[in-house]
């Protein structure tokens, strides 16, 4: 199977990308990319200003309002402990965004570094590193994340690391492939001829060339990371209650699905919205970076 470096669920769509710089980069972004960016930005703002926006304390229980239907008092209803769903959604955005973005940034840095080193040094380092990545790839990512979190305990840091781990091989592969592709290019030979050190060639000269490709991957992977985080929380491997995580809210709402389906549906839609937004951004960036693909898709 060819090793294409996108999230496992987006792999087959994509060919190797030839990155190109352009002054009109922003102009090349299509409408749906802007929509995706706007949605993510809005959610980030909502998360940052959650204390100002939230009408209630997200963890305060109120027995009198258990399972209140959506209405004037509780815009999106209240859960089985009488906690305001809207407030919990706003605070929950913090966890989804933090884990989604940070875990992928971590995977991006660590994975690209490993891949660049493997590609640059070759030989035994390359074989060992890439064999390790292949083994990680053999696990379905949800199962791997689940196993890691179950073993290490469901704390913010552990969930972040576990999700980063599932994305690691993809970044390593793309960085390695890109380094190998650039290695014999004239500008790299020129650098060598001038006696530049390995790290200098890698980070000052090769890195900028492969960066756009890595960034596109990162935004598509953020979609996957948010989904994985939500799925783990739904299984019961999210942050411990009463922390309001979206996946955890769906899990709790699911217990009352017969009489109050709004409890499960609002956080579900929130997850869908964020994942969709990251996917829109990723697709748009990919088209903008590689116009050749745009004609094909």
């Amino acid at each position, binding site marked *: 199977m060819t090793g294409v470096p996108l999230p496992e669920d987006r792999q087959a769509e994509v060919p190797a990308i030839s990155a190109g710089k352009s002054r009109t980069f922003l102009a090349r972004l299509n409408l749906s990319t802007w929509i995706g960016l706007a949605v993510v930005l809005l959610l980030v703002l909502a998360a940052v200003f959650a204390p100002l926006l939230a009408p209630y304390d997200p963890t305060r229980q109120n027995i009198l309002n258990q399972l209140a239907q959506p209405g004037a008092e509780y815009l999106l209803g209240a859960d089985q402990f009488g906690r305001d769903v809207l407030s919990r959604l706003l605070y929950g955005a913090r966890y989804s965004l933090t884990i989604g973005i940070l875990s992928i940034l971590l995977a991006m840095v660590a994975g690209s570094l490993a891949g660049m080193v493997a590609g640059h040094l070759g030989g035994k380092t390359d074989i060992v590193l890439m064999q390790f990545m292949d*083994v990680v790839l053999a696990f379905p990512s949800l199962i791997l994340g689940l196993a890691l979190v179950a*073993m290490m305990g469901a704390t913010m840091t552990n969930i972040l690391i576990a999700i980063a781990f599932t994305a690691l091989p993809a970044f390593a592969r793309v960085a390695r492939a890109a380094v190998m592709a650039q290695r014999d290019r004239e500008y790299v030979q020129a650098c060598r001829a001038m006696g530049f050190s390995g790290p200098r060639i890698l980070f000052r000269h090769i890195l900028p060339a492969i960066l756009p490709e890595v960034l596109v991957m990162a935004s598509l992977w953020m979609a996957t990371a948010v989904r994985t985080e939500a799925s783990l929380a739904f299984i019961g491997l999210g942050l411990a209650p009463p922390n309001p995580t979206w996946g955890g809210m769906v899990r709790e709402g699911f217990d009352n699905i017969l009489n109050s389906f709004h409890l499960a549906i609002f956080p579900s839609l929130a997850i869908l919205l964020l994942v969709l937004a990251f996917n829109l951004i990723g697709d748009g960036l990919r088209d903008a970076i590689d116009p050749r693909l745009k004609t094909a898709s």
Partner: protein
Amino acid sequence: MLSFLLKRLGFACVTLICVLSAVFVLVRILPGDPALVILGDQASPASVAALNERLGLDRPIWVQYLSFLGSVLQGDLGTSMVTGRPVTEEILHVLPYTIELTIAALALGVLLGVPAGVLAAVQRNRFPDFLMRILSLVGLSLPAFVGAIILLMIFAIRLPWFPIISAGGGDDLLERLRHMALPTLSLALIMTAYITRVTRSAMLEVLSQDFVRTARAKGAPGWAVIWRHALGNCLIPITTVVGLYLGILIGNSVLTEIVFSRPGLGKLILMALSQRDYTLLQGLIVIYTLMVVVVNLLTDLTYGFLDPRVQYK
């Protein structure tokens, strides 16, 4: 062909052994003494030592490793820490449910996704294309449990057409299908989205090629050009996707099984997690990974059947 097969098999075995080693390490790094986890904090040192001996945890780590590898390769995944029954038995008991669900979802995904993708490609930049593009993007952004919950709410709770708890349905074939319908559909939605996208982009690429123009020029009917000439050349990318995503489908089936209370590996995982049954969890991870490795192997082998130009080397 034979040498290719052996090589692929060998490669799969190496991956599998690496994966087993990874699982071994993973389970060993867990904080805390497994014996303490099983017996509880109040256990006396003597009983902890006794259990450690019974579980073989007092032996040197490499002896444990080799005996773990040895028994797994013989199909022995150990004994459940909670029920005391062999893990292999527990897993084999529910495995058919998961496999049945996954294969049904895959089949449905192909049946819906391929025509949708072809339609989108043929009607490029017209209404059906936009519709398919939006739907497939939503589909692949949909976490498995969200799709499952929405279907459950509409077709089992609002409209009582399907059972809320899809426990299996017994021997009656029709009843069985009724129980399988929603879980299958919810998994298939995701698969459909992936397949639609890849079919569309593969078709677009193929449709612009010379042999398609030639086929049209020699007067082949429109449907034959699209379904026979063009689609035939899209089978390789579609198969790649099917193979890749089957692994994801297997992972996502956990979520679907939980939502629909369907028996299967998902329920077993929940049990292993809530009861801290690490042997069972370890066994389940091995099984999931084994399935992915097998699927990858099968995908590689399928290429040759689909495209005679593929040489097995």
